[in-house]
């Protein structure tokens, strides 16, 4: 971050700047994706227009909704465990903000470049389970409890295929650092042809598919939305939440969707880089300062492409049953990802 601003900053100076950037990196894409996909794409798929009144083409609708939620009464159920109930949305949001820290947006535009970035990301993504369990238990509502338990079971089951799918990428890149993986893709070549680099979506396509399925489940979006299954459990662990706390859960859900999409683009689509043949045309290097501006735009584009897949599935599929979902994770996804790791390892040694 200090390299990005090309001045030396003290810790207390750089921290607020980082905070502001983190807020922007979480909230801006979340708002954009909610408007583009949840409001507009969903409406067009369902032969309606969606919000049209607030701002041009309803683009200010989200602000209006946020205003509405902030005005609402903050209701605590009488039997609720008040402290846990109040804290739960913040725990979910915490995992979102921790996740965004390791995403690189450019050669210098990153919050931290951990050597174990991938490992860190996979670890903190599980923190949200605690928040959801807290919400489910503290609401003192049977639907919430069922939803919370379902969420816990589901998130634990799908954590594993996600980790195993990423392992293939890590083997191929030879590093756990996010920047390292981005560089490895940009500088890689497929059978001596380096014009496209080596985006791992080509060589690790199985891993990408498994990763996206696991992301869908981690986000509990249809077809994996049993925790909030509105026709069975009203809205699961969200049932008793209203006003600001519901808004926090909402932000957590959609911001996490975007950040997982950032991860998918870092791990499989080459991150903030563009294919080398384009840089060759314009005669720029990946280390040039211009990529600190281009990088975030490229990342946003790739993120929107990946989230499109997520929401497309969300609006078209019915949901699984709990046991079918577990069977799918343990009997299909995990064996395939293990085979994927094995094959990747063998090929890595051979080539």
């Amino acid at each position, binding site marked *: 971050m200090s390299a990005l601003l090309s001045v030396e900053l003290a810790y207390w100076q750089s921290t607020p700047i980082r905070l502001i950037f983190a807020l922007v990196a979480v909230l801006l894409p979340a708002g954009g994706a909610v408007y583009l996909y949840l409001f507009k794409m969903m409406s067009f798929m369902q032969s309606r227009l969606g919000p049209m009144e607030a701002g041009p083409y309803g683009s200010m609708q989200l602000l209006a909704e946020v205003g509405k939620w902030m005005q609402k009464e903050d209701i605590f159920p009488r039997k609720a465990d008040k402290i846990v109930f109040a804290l739960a949305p913040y725990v979910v949001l915490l995992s979102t903000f921790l996740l965004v820290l390791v995403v690189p947006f450019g050669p210098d535009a990153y919050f931290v470049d951990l050597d174990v970035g991938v490992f860190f990301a996979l670890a903190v993504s599980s923190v949200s389970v605690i928040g959801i369990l807290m919400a489910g238990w503290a609401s003192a509502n049977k639907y919430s409890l*069922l939803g919370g338990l379902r969420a816990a079971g589901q998130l634990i089951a799908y954590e594993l295929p996600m980790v195993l799918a990423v392992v293939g990428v890590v083997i191929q890149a030879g590093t756990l650092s996010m920047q390292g993986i981005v560089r490895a893709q940009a500088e890689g070549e497929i059978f001596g042809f380096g014009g496209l680099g080596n985006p791992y979506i080509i060589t690790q396509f199985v891993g990408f598919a498994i990763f996206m399925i696991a992301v869908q489940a981690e986000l509990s979006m249809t077809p994996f939305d049993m925790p909030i299954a509105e*026709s*069975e459990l*009203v809205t699961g662990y969200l049932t008793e939440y209203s006003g600001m706390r519901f808004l926090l859960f909402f932000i957590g859900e959609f911001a996490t969707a975007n950040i997982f999409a950032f991860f998918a683009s870092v791990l499989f689509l080459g991150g903030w880089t563009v294919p080398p043949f384009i840089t060759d045309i314009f005669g720029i290097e990946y280390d040039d300062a211009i990529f600190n501006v281009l990088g975030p735009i490229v990342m946003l584009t790739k993120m929107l492409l990946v989230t499109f897949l997520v929401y497309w599935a969300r609006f078209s599929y*019915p*949901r699984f049953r709990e046991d079918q979902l577990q069977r799918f994770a343990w009997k299909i996804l995990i064996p395939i990802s293990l085979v994927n790791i094995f094959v990747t390892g063998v090929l890595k040694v051979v080539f």
Partner: protein
Amino acid sequence: MTAISDRRQMAYIANQAADARVNLELEAEGMTLNIGPQHPATHGTLRIVVRLDGEQVIEADPVMGYMHRGYEKLAEVRTYPQVTTLVNRIDWLGSFANEVPFILACERLMEVEAPPRAQWIRTIFHELGRIANVTLFLGDLGVQLGAITPVFLAFRDREYILNQIEAATGGRFHPNFDRIGGLKDDLPAGWIAETKVALDKIREFCNTLEDLLMGNEIFQSRTRGVGVIPADVGLAYGLTGANIRASGVDWDLRRDNPVGLPYDQVDWKVWTHPDGDSFARCWLRMQEVRESCNIVEQLLDTIPGGPIMAKVPRVIKVPEGEAYVATENPLGMMSYYVVSQGGLEPFRVKIRSASFSNMSIAPWLLKGVYMPDVITILASLYFILGDIDR
């Protein structure tokens, strides 16, 4: 002073009692879950008390009557033409179909017969009601299983049918169009051609939904083999309509009991399915929508001319006697048992609505299934609250 502390004391005792109840519940086998009266899946005010062991249902007990409106009793203080307004509200999605058996029973008592044109139009609206009703079922099924898109398509395409009903009768939902001895009005000009266009839209909708929902593997894995009703059990519980036909019983009152409706003039087919599971019920309803489109199209082509009203007195007095008429309505068999003592008002009207009997199999069917399947089974049984509680 004492009053406040008394109230506090009582609140404390009530709290303790509630805690004790919760503890008792946790210690006892299973957890009692009230699905409804206000729940997204009951689309109305049905309440099902479910005892759960984990997510498995130990026993389920539907509690009906939250929407009881007393139509049987109200009918006794209405004149005969006024009763149709009431019975319109029983199955509110296929309203016209509710009027038909009552009017037929009255006509039988009065020994009048509607002219052929009226019979034809009656049958057309009976089938249009079925299409409007079941189209919405097909979309709603998606919502119950978590797919949100089909229901919007269903609402969109049902509108074409409702527009046609409105164009002819003036009422989108509650036509109140049937009269003893005929109909209120003739069809407006150009209606037949427009209806054919609307039928094409519905056929297109069926094809879309077959691709979007029925062919989906998740949908199939959620519905196939879930909530299997064997034919004998279904018959014993008095299941009718598509629910029993999905269990392989070839029984359709439109064909087997034509009571003044010209179904025998039309070339059509009664669909059955051998499986009896939720998928069979959904599939069967979809085929019936397509079949209804065929029936309506043929009736539109062969509609005879002539008057739409038989000669009936201005003030309708039904002679003494009793009549029972059953027809095949969108939800199953609907029948009216009308007893007259020769006055302006019926002495007694017994209404047999299909959903009430269809719902009665729920405790048997829900035993031992998982919580998500409860919703699938309830959705595939297809009840309408007004039809359960009358």
